[in-house]
């Protein structure tokens, strides 16, 4: 555990020692803020219209602002993840520091989990940028707290999967650009999967739909914690980290 935290701390430090952490936080803050702006503007316009015309369904800040907004956040994450994970192993391999890690008395698992935790914490920092926006909603409106927290949990779990996949891809190359590019492609495919099949039914469609990482976020966005979604995410994280360790092992044997 000590070694895991040590490596996690080292990763986090190096993210913040370079501009990457600040850049990603700024990007996310800006884009999320833009989403927030348009969502509230539409909400306000709509609610004025409703008032003028009278009647209509009751409006909900949770349903009409926070839910789409955090869904939007989940989409932005697809673009952030490759930039977070691409350096994890590729950089260590290129600069030779991987030799230090692999010849020190720590296990592969400790290295992998430590790096993954570091990436998670950076993602958490990035996600915190959105709290400013959401806090504004709490200041001027009365949304429910619980569903917002659930949605954040969903975002973290989803990012956990993508980061683990990205980490795996980063072990396969010493070129950061390739690691980032491939990760981005894979993230995109996992996102697109449910487009192909959203109107289909049948076994294949069900399976493909099940594999789409974004599908599992929908329930969280609604504020519902479904056991199957949590299990999906946790097992995906475990699986991806497991392949990462296999990949490191095979690198040793082949290199």
């Amino acid at each position, binding site marked *: 555990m*000590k*070694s895991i935290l*040590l*490596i996690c701390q*080292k990763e986090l*430090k*190096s993210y913040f*020692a*370079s501009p990457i952490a600040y850049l990603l936080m700024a990007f996310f803050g800006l884009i999320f803020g833009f989403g927030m702006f348009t969502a509230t503007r539409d909400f306000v316009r709509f609610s004025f219209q409703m008032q003028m015309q009278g009647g209509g369904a009751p409006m909900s800040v949770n349903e009409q602002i926070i839910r789409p907004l955090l869904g939007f956040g989940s989409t932005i994450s697809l673009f952030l993840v490759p930039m977070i994970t691409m350096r994890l192993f590729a950089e260590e391999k290129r*600069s*030779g*520091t*991987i*030799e*230090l*890690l*692999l*010849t*020190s*008395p*720590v*296990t592969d698992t400790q290295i992998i989990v430590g790096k993954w935790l570091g990436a998670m914490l950076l993602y958490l920092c990035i996600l915190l940028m959105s709290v400013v926006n959401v806090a504004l909603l709490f200041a001027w409106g009365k949304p429910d707290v619980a569903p917002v927290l659930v949605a954040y949990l969903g975002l973290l779990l989803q990012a956990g999967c993508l980061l683990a996949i990205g980490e795996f891809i980063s072990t396969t190359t010493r070129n950061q650009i390739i690691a980032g590019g491939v990760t981005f492609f894979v993230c995109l495919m996992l996102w697109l999967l449910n487009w192909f099949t959203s109107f289909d039914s049948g076994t294949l469609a069900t399976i493909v739909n099940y594999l789409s990482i974004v599908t599992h976020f929908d329930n969280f966005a609604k504020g519902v914690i479904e056991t199957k979604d949590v299990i999906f995410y946790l097992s995906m994280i475990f699986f991806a980290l497991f392949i990462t360790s296999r990949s490191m092992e095979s690198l*040793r*044997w*082949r*290199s």
Partner: protein
Amino acid sequence: MIKVEGLTKRYARTVAVDNISFEVEKGQIVGFLGPNGAGKTTTMRVLTCFLPPSEGKATVAGFDVLENPMEVKKRIGYLPETPPLYPEMEVVEYLNFVGKLKGIASGEIPQRVDDVMRRCAVADVRNKLISKLSKGYRQRVGLAQAIIHNPDVLILDEPTSGLDPKQIIETRELIRSLAGDHTIILSTHILTEVEQSCERVIIISSGKLVAIDSVANLTNRLRGSEAVAVELEATEGRPNPSEVQQRLEQVSGVSRVVMKDSRNGRLAFEVESLQGRQIRADLARTVVNSGWNLNELRSVGLSLEDIFLQLTASEQKDTVGAKE
């Protein structure tokens, strides 16, 4: 301390290390010598548990690299060819990190870090970013990193490459000062380095073991025979080249005479001596007594470099390696 038996490492298509066996005793400094691509780094990587061997066994302090890598890693300090440094860290921060990584108790770390910074002469850059350091400092920070946990075995892959002459001397002194407490294997392709800092030499070439011996023995044996260039003045076919050659061959201690040149009024020969024989004085006397004009008499020596090239170019494993 280190025992390697029948070690073979194959990559996809090539055999990097082919059936190497050797032993290193506690407290020794051993030089690992070979041309680039001979398999030095691969052997070191196997010993540090970075790569698993394809065949054979390697043990460090009695622990097998495959079965007990954790125990081996605890006892080894490793400086790879490019020092494994994180450019975004300060020197002190980096050494702290490595100290913790190597499992030093956190209470002892500040003291250990100060100690290695002093020994490796990097204390004056303690708060500098590693990315701002010169090559020499980087190398020394790399060395500090390798000894921070006071390992039984130190494995240094070309520790002086890329340093300027003054830094090379300092680094060699540092390495020598580490001997005794530590068993050290250092690889290099520079022969003088081995002569100056090592007690024993292991020479490998294209993955095969060529020689293992003490430095003194090896240099003696290899330097035993010398080559002398002899040049005479020649005018209109006199003296007769074949006659000169014959006379020179008769000098005691000469093993071989080769004519190099007979143009432009000069006759040039290269004379090789038998093992351990000094022949220059006798050669000079012979020439003068025969009434020839001696232009030049110069020892061209069989340098360690020549011998090394000979050893590594051809398979002389049997002649030199068999004695070990």
